[in-house]
């Protein structure tokens, strides 16, 4: 817990520092009217499930948008995930400035499509900020130093809909399922390294979180109500300048007795035909969801499709 508190303190201070750096850099930048789209393909243009610049499940140390260190960029995404008994739609927008700071907003709309809870819905809003600290994943090919960034994601759960239809009349909040809060903030540090000579991208993330199922079931719970310190990772192989294949793993806390939350992972194809359009096709497995409550203990897996447009 000391670790996660320290991580949070670092992230908050660095975000403040990032805002100061941004002001200083903006004063000297001369390409702020339009985006220069000056980054390499595949190093921007993708947002993860929570809206941060990254892949499907895991953020990268890259800043969203193709604007270089003298410019800015933005990216909008629409993501559709069809699991065996659940569907998650996510959509949002991320803006990156001076290849230094990223701000994102994403909305999740989660629907139960199977089990006894068929018809139940949950939604949440996520506001994220990320600051690149040091290193450059592209230029630092002669260095062991990865590109490092820290971020924070504030989640606000907007409540449960249609509970009466599945015999849970009066249930309107994940707090009634055992969560301690309907809002929470994740803090993370991401280290991304491109081994260009090997055409490989490696990314490691450490996240301090209280979120249950990405925040869809609230924050903290009857089993645990303190921050957990969870590792995540990405490995990708660059097939062409436009196409990468890879896998992601995101370990997650287990705070709720009614849920059987476990590690989520995926395999993905990321395709960027241009700097204005990116597509992700993945196969996602997030393990059991609400198994103890529904009696349906099977793994929830299925296709993850995301379309992203930006500059």
């Amino acid at each position, binding site marked *: 817990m000391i670790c996660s508190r320290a991580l949070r303190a670092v992230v908050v201070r660095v975000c403040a520092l990032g805002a100061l750096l941004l002001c200083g850099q903006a004063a000297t930048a001369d390409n702020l009217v339009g985006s220069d789209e000056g980054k390499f393909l595949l190093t921007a243009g993708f947002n993860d499930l929570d809206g941060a610049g990254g892949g499907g499940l895991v953020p990268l140390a890259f800043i969203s948008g193709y604007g270089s*260190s*003298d410019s800015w960029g933005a990216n909008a995404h629409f993501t559709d995930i069809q699991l065996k008994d659940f569907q998650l739609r996510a959509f949002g927008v991320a803006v990156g400035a001076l*290849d230094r700071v990223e701000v994102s907003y994403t909305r999740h709309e989660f629907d139960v499509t199977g089990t006894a809870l068929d018809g139940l819905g949950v939604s949440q809003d996520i506001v994220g900020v990320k600051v690149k600290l040091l290193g450059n994943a592209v230029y630092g090919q002669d260095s062991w130093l990865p590109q490092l960034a820290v971020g924070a994601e504030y989640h606000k759960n907007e409540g449960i809909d249609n509970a009466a239809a599945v015999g849970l009349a009066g249930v309107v909040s994940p707090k009634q399922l055992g969560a301690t809060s309907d809002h929470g903030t994740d803090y993370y540090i991401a280290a991304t390294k491109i081994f*260009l*000579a090997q055409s490989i991208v490696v990314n490691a993330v450490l996240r301090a979180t209280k979120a249950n199922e990405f925040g869809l079931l609230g924050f903290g719970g009857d089993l645990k109500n303190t921050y957990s310190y969870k590792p995540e990772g990405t490995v990708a192989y660059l097939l062409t300048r436009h196409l990468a294949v890879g896998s992601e793993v995101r370990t997650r806390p287990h705070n709720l007795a009614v849920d059987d939350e476990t590690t989520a992972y995926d395999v993905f194809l990321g395709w960027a035909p241009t700097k204005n359009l990116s597509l992700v096709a993945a196969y996602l497995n997030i393990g059991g969801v609400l198994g103890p409550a529904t009696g349906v203990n099977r793994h929830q897996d299925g296709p993850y499709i995301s379309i992203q447009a930006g500059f």
Partner: protein
Amino acid sequence: MSSLLKTVMGCLLLAAAASAAAQEMNKGGPTTLYDRIGGESKLRATMHEFVLIMESDDRINFTFANTDLKKFEQLLFEQLCNITGGGCKYTGRDMYTAHAKLNINNAEFNALAEDLYEAFDREHVPYRLQNKVVALLAPMQRDVVKDHLVPQDSPPKPK
């Protein structure tokens, strides 16, 4: 799948990997990246394409307004031959001095790299080899891109 079938398939995969590794070793020592790209003729053809692409690239062609492009192409060949192990001597200026007055920014540096990828594509050099070349060039960003505007009459930084 039966465990016997899995074992047999595993053995076949191992055998295939071992035979591929043996073939690699039989080629007689490690070859240079220069040779793997296709040697002098391929690199010269690529540099010719590279200069043509840069010349028509409005993002960066203003930096070549006063450049002797024939000489520039020769220097590019020498430099890439040198860093890929082809044994050439690079007779141009160092990267910091050569770009001292150009005020190149990151977007322009990256645009040049994109043009190099395009030139390699046109010469059908495999993408994974293109990445090996760009991996050698990428750290030059620190000498090429200035983090501040350099006055046009400032003397080059002493090396």
